[in-house]
């Protein structure tokens, strides 16, 4: 196994992107008890926005703006139409529902944009290497490490220093008690969905820069791996979720880049083997909050 500087930088940036996605999934889980399987399709929609903006000849900033608009609109729409009506159902039912939404969005993409995909060429310059002390590293790797670090720091501030952030954390601990103490359910859920959407849009931008070929299954594999990482870390607390996402992104970046193909193709087996092991070592899973649920 050989690890070059480029591999290391790529792995760090993948870890950063996955950490953001993990927080995005974790925040919504915290307030809604909903594992959003369709998160990857939100990112896919954002990536298509960038790709089509580039096809229409828009400058890259306009494409990124469109990406934010599309992803935010779609997350609010999903929240209103699907997540809120299902709020009282069991987490398993909601997981199945988001599974259905994921397929729905994917087939809408196939219907409207075709199977083959579109190239987001405006972000091409970000794929050029930078020469740092004789070592060549792709710009996007550096950019996404910086963006991820800034976003995570801002999130930490939001969650610990603002009232909506504190309410979100309180709701993640115990939604019912939080409501009794005056936390407005809709405000907290709306906030979490919006932030989660913002993170999806940012991830869409960075993933598109890494891989400009946007297809209907864009970010599907990434989401599956991030879900595994979030489970490893712990879903309803932001920091463990972030760490889980980062670890699994970094590990798959290093192993995927450093190992020969005939070994790295078995990466999902190792990752999911690890997930199952973690779930088993803590029999209630890392999902149980406060250890009070599902003790049977």
């Amino acid at each position, binding site marked *: 196994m050989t690890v070059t500087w480029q591999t290391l930088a790529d792995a760090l940036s993948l870890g950063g992107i996955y950490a953001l996605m993990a927080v995005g999934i974790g925040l919504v889980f915290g307030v809604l008890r909903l594992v959003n399987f369709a998160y990857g399709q939100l990112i896919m929609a954002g990536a298509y926005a960038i790709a089509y903006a580039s096809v229409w000849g828009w400058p890259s900033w306009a494409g990124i703006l469109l990406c934010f608009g599309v992803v935010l609109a779609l997350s609010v729409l999903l929240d209103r139409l699907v997540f809120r009506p299902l709020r009282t159902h069991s987490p*398993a039912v909601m997981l199945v529902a988001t599974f*259905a939404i994921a*397929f729905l969005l994917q087939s809408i993409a196939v*219907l409207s944009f075709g*199977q083959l995909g579109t190239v987001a060429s405006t972000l091409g310059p970000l794929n050029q290497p930078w020469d740092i002390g004789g070592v060549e590293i792709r710009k996007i790797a550096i950019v996404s490490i910086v963006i991820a670090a800034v976003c995570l720091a801002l999130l930490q501030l939001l969650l610990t220093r603002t009232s909506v952030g504190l309410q979100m954390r309180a709701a993640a601990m115990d939604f019912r008690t939080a409501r009794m103490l005056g936390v407005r359910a809709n405000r907290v859920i709306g906030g979490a969905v919006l932030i989660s959407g913002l993170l999806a849009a940012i991830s869409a931008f960075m993933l598109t820069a890494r891989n400009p070929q946007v297809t209907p299954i864009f970010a599907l594999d990434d989401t599956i791996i991030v879900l595994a990482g979030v*489970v490893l870390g712990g879903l309803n607390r932001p920091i463990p979720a972030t760490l889980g996402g980062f670890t699994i992104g970094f590990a798959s970046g290093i192993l995927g880049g450093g190992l020969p193909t005939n070994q790295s193709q078995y990466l999902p*087996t190792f990752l999911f083997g690890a997930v199952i092991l973690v779930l088993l070592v803590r029999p209630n*899973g890392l999902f149980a909050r406060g250890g009070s649920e599902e003790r*049977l």
Partner: protein
Amino acid sequence: MRRVVELAAPVALVLATALLGLAVSTALQTYFLDTLVKVAIVVALYVFIGNSGVLSFGHISFVALGVWTAGVLTVPEGQKNAIMPGIAHFLLHTNVGNAWSLVLAAAVGLAFAFAVGLPLMRLSGLAAGIATFGVLEIVNNVLRYDDRIGPGLNAFSSVPETTGIWQAAIGALICVVVAYAYQRSRYGRQLRATREDPAAASAAGISIYRQRLLAFAVSGALAGLAGGLYVHLLPIEIDSLYLDLTFITLAMLVVGGSGSLLGAVVGALAVGGLDSFLSAAENGVDIFGWHLNLPTDTSALTVGALMALVLVYRPGGLTGGHELSLALPRFRKDGDG
């Protein structure tokens, strides 16, 4: 009497589908065959998910193992080297007939589900969903890339195409009858008790873990059998036994109503029929003089939307989780089934 009616309804539906399949042209018959195999898969899903109330994303991996077992053992010996160049020696020279390949597919499904269930059946809720999803990922990953045990990314071609309408119908009927026998047995009732109220069931001395494990193994066997039927139907690839099939079969179960055997069969037939019709229309069909030609993936779109709508507005599914009953419905507040 009640038992006869409850079992007769799903059996009659399967038989009616088979008879209808006999009446139509060969081209159309493919859709009926496919739907009958899906009935078998959905009933297998129902045995576990319906009776236990625990979610499983892993059952398609049992189907995949059934496909693999029956496929690898029935490719004619002369062609094994051509289809599976890297195949291990002991698989190269082992061949069985049609019936044995189906029995072995069920046996492999049973053994694997039991082995996986031993650790995993301690989990429930979301953790069970994610862990079984992991099983699906791992089985798919290994079967896809390890060419010592199978054709890898290639299709299982040259497998004798023995799944005609009768084999498909008999296979689906076996699944229905086993599922019914299981749910009426004391084990099935115990598991349903744990679904309704885990705490009370535990207090009554039911081991949730054991009952779930038993149901998981039984449904694994049925899923393996369904896989055997599938590979004898058409040259199938491992890649088509992954997320798409998981999605469509879960959609069938949810739309029909995961609380009853009738729901599983009705859901499989209704969604299967709709899906078949739309897939046919994607290639262009003529109905009543109208020429209908839908764009690709319309069927996935419709099924996805249907599933989401049912989950939001009618969580009990079409049947509301009830078996067919001749008695007049009693007046009561209708729950979610």
